[in-house]
């Protein structure tokens, strides 16, 4: 089913007799497998409003992300939360949509300093499980009128409602960017270096620790802004980090963009046959957690260490091996059999699970919206 309007969408949901498997561009098959009739949002497409002077853009949920990015670039603006493209990592094809980005709260390296997708989401329109059309938020940057269902919808993977329209805060493009690179650090030293950078006044917009093609550890720190300012801050930050080793400054914008796109899209695990886990943790906890992971794994860190991407042997329940830790782990890629056995999303403590179940029962009383996807 491919509705062409919000009212069509509402009718389809209201009259649905079976569960619906909701999809935007189909590039992010994350979560437990859903058995249901396919409901594609591809027919709800188009930018409805774009005011560069007000830093706001409103688009129908099925609008291709690329269309939005091109439109913004023409006015020297961008999506500051830098949404990851999952196609390389998940081996999917198709066209990512803005609705999919919002439904999965997809952010990139800039999240650590500038905020997540949910932080730039100003408003939503959606159809709940009863087929009611609901709006929340709006298109202004500050809005505390009523409860914030906007945040609740971001990252709810279509399980509370089917998005029909989203409204986003956008930001200016930057003049240039540079990376500071330190090679050969241990995980703990690298995370310490990234913390030092993020704790400096030099406005770091990316802080990752990964490996190059030869397996050499590489810590990367990104600075963005006006050229003089980036040059100045690169120098100051290099001085600040020199106790960690030799700091190379990469100032060619294309090279810098390519470096961070690889990190954003977790390209180092492209085509890797292992299962892929994604952990959000307190940055200083990260090296210790990784040390507890089973042998035969590889990891890469983003968000100053707060985001760990781990490739582990297939069908490994990483959560059981790690035991209790502060944060959460999501199984991003695994066989259908593994995803049916191991919950994709981190199990919640009882009082939280009770609230979550209560909300689902209200927003989707018939359990027809991507049922079971989030557990």
């Amino acid at each position: 089913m491919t509705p062409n309007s919000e009212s069509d969408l509402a009718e389809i949901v209201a009259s649905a007799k079976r569960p619906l498997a909701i999809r935007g561009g189909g590039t992010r098959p994350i979560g437990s497998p859903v058995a249901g009739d396919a409901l594609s949002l591809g027919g709800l497409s188009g930018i409805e409003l774009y005011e560069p002077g007000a830093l706001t853009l409103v688009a129908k949920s099925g609008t291709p992300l690329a269309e939005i990015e091109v439109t913004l670039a023409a006015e020297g603006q961008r999506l500051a939360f830098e949404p990851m493209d999952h196609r390389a990592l998940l081996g999917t094809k198709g066209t990512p949509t803005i609705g999919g980005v919002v439904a999965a709260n997809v952010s990139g390296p800039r999240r650590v300093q500038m905020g997540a997708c949910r932080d730039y989401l100003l408003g939503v329109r959606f159809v709940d499980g009863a087929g009611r059309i609901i709006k929340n938020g709006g298109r202004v940057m500050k809005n505390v009128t009523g409860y914030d269902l906007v945040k609740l919808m971001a990252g709810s993977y279509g399980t509370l409602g089917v998005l029909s329209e989203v409204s986003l805060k956008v930001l200016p493009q930057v003049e240039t960017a540079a990376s500071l690179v330190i090679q050969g650090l241990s995980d703990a030293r690298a995370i310490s270096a990234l913390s030092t950078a993020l704790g400096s006044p030099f406005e770091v917009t990316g802080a990752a620790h990964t490996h190059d093609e030869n397996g050499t550890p590489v810590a990367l720190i990104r600075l963005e802004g006006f050229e003089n300012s980036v040059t100045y801050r690169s120098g100051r930050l290099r001085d600040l980090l020199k106790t960690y080793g030799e700091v190379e400054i990469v100032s060619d914008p294309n090279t810098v963009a390519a470096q961070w796109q690889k990190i954003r899209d977790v390209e180092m695990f492209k085509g890797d046959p292992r299962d892929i886990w994604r952990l959000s943790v307190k940055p200083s906890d990260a090296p210790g957690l990784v040390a507890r992971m089973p042998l035969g794994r590889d990891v890469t860190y983003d968000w100053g260490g707060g985001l760990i991407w781990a490739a582990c042997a297939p069908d490994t329940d990483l959560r059981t091996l790690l035991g209790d830790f502060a944060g959460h782990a999501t199984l991003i890629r695994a066989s259908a059999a593994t995803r049916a056995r191991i919950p994709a999303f981190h199990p919640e403590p009882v009082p939280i699970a009770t609230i979550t179940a209560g909300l689902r029962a209200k927003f989707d009383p018939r359990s027809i919206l991507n049922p079971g996807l989030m557990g």
Partner: protein
Amino acid sequence: MEMPTPQAGILANKARLIEMLQAVLPAGAVIHDPVETRAYECDALTAYKCPPLAAVLPTSTQEVAAVLRICHAENVPVVPRGSGTSLAGGALPTADSIVLGVARLNQVLETDYDNRFIRVQTGRTNLSVSGAVEERDFFYAPDPSSQLACAIAGNIAMNSGGAHCLKYGVTTNNLLGVTMVQMDGTVVEIGGAHLDAGGLDLLGLICGSEGQLGVVTEATLRILPKPEGARPVLIGFDSNEVAGACVSDIIKAGLLPVAIEFMDRPCIRATEAFVGAGYPDCEALLIVEVEGSPAEIDEQLGLIKAIARAHNPVELRESQSAEESEKIWLGRKSAFGAMGRINDYMCLDGTIPVSSLPFVLKRIGELSGKYGLDVANVFHAGDGNMHPLILFDANKPGDLELCEEFGAEVLKLCVEVGGCLTGEHGVGIEKRDLMNVQFSHDDLEAQLQVKDVFDPKWLLNPAKVFPLEATRIRRAA
């Protein structure tokens, strides 16, 4: 302003209820003498007052849970209160309610510079959170004008903003985790020192829920390294419209100042008389602040001044010293107080698309003529968050009602141009009955059902946020 009729059964039961509360709280933590409960009869929306049945001042999450368990069992409404600085009546009690004040929950629990967060009890004031991390040149970004007094609990309840949120975001963008007590006494931990939710984003839902979903007792807040420096520039114009156009041009040019504040002549004059901030006497004044090293500031301000010059400003003055900058901000943050010295006022908080600023300012001027009430404007122009202050005389019969009618018309205008009723103050009781202007029945129902999940008995701050008519059946159940 209609409030629910106090329940006679609860009023009759006061003595027993006080005993039960005293049994679970330290000595002196239950305030029930009518002389003393008057201290809790209103917040900063002083037009409406009602002393509560009692006020309690717990000192731990466990004590909060014990209080809520009792009130839940006895079906007594609870009104959570931070520092009582709400401009929307968020902490206004009813005669049959218990005010739960978090003032004694004011400890710093953990400071972690490597991971850039602080964990505090929520009775702590906004400014003292920044104060606690100042030694290492960090700060907590949201900065409501009431930051000297307002509590983190209230900031979370109202999702407070401030002058600098153009760059740093509002409370919800700087909140990492909470410890919250539900109305039935259940204690939940949501979020923490890590980023983003593992499941549904309940943290985002709780922030801004005006104390209706739970009582937040502890919060993990993001702290940021202070910029190397900051410097404001004052730009004066001879019309509001031109000032509005200048704001739009600054944003369109790809500059992202940390703040763009706007004041009109009535506000400039009152503020000058109050604190002597050194503002020029002009029709409209912008305070634009940028951050960075001295050279970075020079570069950005150079671009901003060039844009401003194209709009023929009557004044263009860069701050020359830290003292001058401080004075400029003191003036802005004292603006409401300055207006309060010369008149009673009602402060609106509607937000509009920045592109509509000139039109809305013009319309407010026309409405001011229609109602015969003066208006002063002081607001966060960069993000379209207006603060028209409508002046009235509380001693003049009918003036408050006239002022409220005027205010309602302005807020409807904000919604009409694509904005909202409130940008950072919250709905409280003040804008409760206008919610139907912005939301359809289904839109409101989707929100009401969230409260049904967190507080099925509708005991937490029950008469706020939504039109009373929309919640009557739920509150009576």
